[in-house]
């Protein structure tokens, strides 16, 4: 039971501090607010301030329980002095009609109770227990921000994670999830108050319930995710815009939207368009300045840590080692096209009544979403549809169900405004029943990600946390195994993600970062025939003095063609004269474009390391060696793999007269590679900092690694739930 108290304290302390900061902020905004809306808006508007404060504490490495406690008490004391605890609002919002006066609170209260219990249960969501809280736990252990080059998600903005960290310090995982849950519960309240404020109280109440009772919202909002918070912030921006809040406040919230989730930053367009429509050009300056100020910590951190302010995106604009452009290209494409999804009508059905393929669903009610267009008849409806279009404009970059959450409050509003009032109560009640945990199973074949039951015993810690987690979370016991069987500081290379927040060891999942991809490449070179160093291209040319050589890739395959996704790679570049290889000496300099950092791998003598373009092939890529003086040469051998059929090469040499072509695209021929490739790969993995491998029996590498463990130079030290932990020898 004491755990329940620490969970509640952590969450409430974060919510209270956020609210107190918000109260002080709104006072300075001189915004006349009714009592019903003042407190919800205070919590939401205080979040950017608390988040920024935690970020600053992270920067100065002051993440300690005592510091948070002291800072929180100071905030509360300052708020007390500022009169935040006194109610100044005399204005009351128009009351709801009688039916809604009990219907909304009833459904809201039931769902709120379910949500709080679900959030209080030990965290089992994939992303929440994986990276959201994985990073939070790491910052907490390290007392501040850390450069995490093994997980690209570490470069996403972490505005909400900063609030999680505040709560995590006292109540760990569940406290963080409860903070997110507070945003979830704040959103329907904001929607209700917005309706009351703008003359559509029934639509507001109905829209709030439409949003709250959607299965994907309930499960996401009760996990340590960020989507419900993003939805809440986006709605608050529209709310404050319509309430004619000062531009700097809109900027603060817009900047925070970016800090919460990159794609939520589009919400800033709403106040920008509204102000531009009214030709309030001067208002744009404080708005943009405040937004930049609140958002700035994240691109700045990314530029310092990862060399790319927009990391993990835009890696071709700001090339870096942290995330490869090729990965980004593949990832962006895969997020737009989920497996088995073939048409937009199928997307609509998955989003509403199936849910298996898009990781969650909104419920049958949202089949009526197109009717929301009828809301165009009213001014409020047009504004809601504009906001829905803005907030939903980024959905096409990732068509998962939860990525509609920022747009959903507005879509709900449009539906509620378009449909006749008497129907709304029936629809809201039916939607609430249909979305309640364990109900979708009764009318759907295999509903996707959702809250399937109310984990009240686990929430109240009447069940042992470890036992419940072991039962509910696929990789929990693997994470604990890693914790027990590896020493502090271990780097565990894994082929799939596990709940990293339950181990203090660093997990490098093979596809989650440039570093992970480079480590994986070592294993794949040893594992797959077409990736091995078994193809040679030999350029022969008249003997001549050269100061530098470069191999240029000359082909740009047509987009969509078979070879469009080829990457160029070279294991070794060997320069010879008269059949004898030129000795590489200290005066040599090597370079490449793209991926200049990896150029040395083509000149290190190892058959498992290779320079890779890490970007789909295009004409003009090159790999270059400068000799520090003139060298006589008549032959260049490139050791390559066969997984790059689209590559066309030209050899150029630099003479005192400049660069000249020495040869074009020689034929490919086979060569032998060492039989110790597996062991060499593992040795390089060790040089890359890896100490252990975590492999699941479903991973493609399992068969080779387990069957040839001795040849790889690894030893199994533990196994649980199909996961096997190997130590590098």
């Amino acid at each position, binding site marked *: 039971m004491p755990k329940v108290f620490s969970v509640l304290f952590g969450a409430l302390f974060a919510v209270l501090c956020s609210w107190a900061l918000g109260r002080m902020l709104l006072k300075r905004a001189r915004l006349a607010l009714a009592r019903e809306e003042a407190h919800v808006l205070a919590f939401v508007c205080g979040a950017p301030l608390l988040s920024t404060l935690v970020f600053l504490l992270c920067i100065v490495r002051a993440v300690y329980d005592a510091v948070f406690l002291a800072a929180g008490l100071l905030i509360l004391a300052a708020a007390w002095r500022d009169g935040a605890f006194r109610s100044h609002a005399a204005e009351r919002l128009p009351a709801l009609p009688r039916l809604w006066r009990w219907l909304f609170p009833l459904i809201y209260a039931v769902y709120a109770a379910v949500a709080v219990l679900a959030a209080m249960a030990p965290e089992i969501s994939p992303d929440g227990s994986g990276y959201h809280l994985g990073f939070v736990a790491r910052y907490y252990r390290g007392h501040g921000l850390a450069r995490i080059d093994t997980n690209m998600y570490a470069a996403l903005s972490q505005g909400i994670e900063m609030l999680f960290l505040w709560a995590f310090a006292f109540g760990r995982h569940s406290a963080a999830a409860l903070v997110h849950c507070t945003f979830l519960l704040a959103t329907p309240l904001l929607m209700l108050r917005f309706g009351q404020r703008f003359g559509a109280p029934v639509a507001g109440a109905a829209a709030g319930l439409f949003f709250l009772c959607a299965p994907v919202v309930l499960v996401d909002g009760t996990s340590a995710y960020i989507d419900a918070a993003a939805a809440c912030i986006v709605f608050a921006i529209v709310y404050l815009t319509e309430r004619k809040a000062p531009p700097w406040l809109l900027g603060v919230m817009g900047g925070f939207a970016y800090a919460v989730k990159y794609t939520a930053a589009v919400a800033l367009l709403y106040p920008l368009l509204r102000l531009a429509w009214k030709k309030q050009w001067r208002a744009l300056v404080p708005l943009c300045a405040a937004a930049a100020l609140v958002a700035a910590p994240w691109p700045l951190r990314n530029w310092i840590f990862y060399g790319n302010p927009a990391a993990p995106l835009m890696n071709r604009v700001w*090339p870096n080692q942290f995330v490869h452009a090729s990965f980004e290209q593949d990832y962006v494409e895969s997020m737009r096209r989920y497996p088995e999804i073939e048409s937009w009508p199928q997307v609509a059905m998955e989003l509403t009544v199936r849910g298996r393929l898009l990781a969650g669903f909104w419920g049958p009610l949202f089949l009526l979403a197109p009717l929301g267009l009828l809301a165009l008849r009213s001014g409020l409806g047009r504004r809601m549809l504009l906001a829905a279009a803005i907030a939903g404009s980024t959905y096409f970059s990732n068509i998962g169900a939860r990525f509609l959450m920022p747009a959903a409050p507005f879509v709900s509003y449009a539906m509620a405004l378009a449909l006749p009032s008497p129907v709304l109560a029936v629809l809201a009640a039916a939607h609430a029943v249909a979305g309640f945990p364990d109900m979708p199973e009764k009318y759907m074949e295999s509903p996707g990600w959702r809250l399937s039951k109310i984990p009240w015993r686990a929430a109240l810690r009447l069940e042992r946390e470890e036992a419940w987690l072991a039962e509910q979370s696929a990789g929990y016991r693997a994470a604990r195994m890693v914790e027990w069987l590896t020493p502090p500081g271990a780097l565990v290379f894994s082929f799939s993600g596990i709940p990293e927040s339950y181990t203090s060891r660093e997990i490098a999942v093979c596809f989650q970062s440039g570093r992970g991809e480079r480590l994986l490449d070592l294993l794949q070179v040893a594992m797959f*025939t077409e990736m091995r160093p078994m193809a040679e291209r030999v350029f022969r040319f008249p003997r001549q003095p050269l100061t530098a050589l470069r191999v240029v890739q000359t082909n740009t395959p047509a987009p969509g063609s078979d070879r469009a996704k080829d990457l160029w790679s070279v294991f070794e570049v060997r320069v010879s004269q008269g059949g004898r290889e030129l000795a590489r000496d200290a005066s040599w300099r090597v*370079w490449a474009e793209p991926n200049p950092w990896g150029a040395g791998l083509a000149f*290190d003598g190892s058959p498992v390391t290779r320079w890779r373009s890490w970007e789909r092939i295009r004409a003009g890529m090159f790999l270059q060696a400068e000799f520090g003086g003139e060298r006589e040469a008549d032959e260049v051998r490139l050791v390559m793999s066969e997984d790059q059929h689209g590559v066309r090469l030209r050899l150029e040499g630099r003479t005192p007269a400049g660069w000249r072509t020495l040869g074009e695209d020689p034929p490919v021929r086979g060569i032998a*590679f060492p*039989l110790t*490739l*597996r062991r060499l790969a593992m040795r390089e993995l060790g040089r890359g900092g890896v100490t252990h491998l975590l492999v699941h029996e479903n991973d493609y590498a399992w068969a080779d690694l387990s069957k040839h463990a001795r040849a790889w130079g690894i030893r199994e030290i533990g196994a649980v739930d199909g996961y096997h932990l190997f130590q590098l020898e």
Partner: protein
Amino acid sequence: MLPLSAGLHLPRAGQDPAVKARIPWIAVLVGALSGCARLPGPMPLPPQKSDGGSGPPAHYLFFRDREAAQRIVAGLSGEIIDDWRWASRRVLLRLAVEETQGIFFQAVLTVPDEFVRAGGREIQVRIRSRLLGSIPAGKPGYIVWRQPVPEAWLEAGRDMEVELLADAEWMQGSTPRGYILSSAGFTL
């Protein structure tokens, strides 16, 4: 793609007073933007490794290479034609491996019509006198034959005899011929 001027009248570089007045700002902007992408210039060589070993490989032979002769005991022509040699009825190679686990034996060969007409049907592969398997050679054509080698048959660091025994032979003039062998040996 539009040409640089895009049909506009552009002043020559540096001659427009408006441009001149803004040169410091432009320099700051260019500096800031180029500072954002932190790309390294040419770099020194990394430490050199000798993981690939030195000298010709002892576990897999490409018969286009003259050095392969060091490991051919019998049955292969000394003449290299393009990237292959003629194999006779019995080819004997002396190979060595550095690793014994997860190893395959591989032979890349071409069966000519004449071999089939001479009654050729298969080529047995023996490693240290143990039969690994038979390469089906009853049809003319190009063959890449791979077979896993039991770990116990191999011994790291010691030369081993590998025998390719065909069941037929034919005469080209006065020279006995079998099939065309491009490469053979141990691989992964």
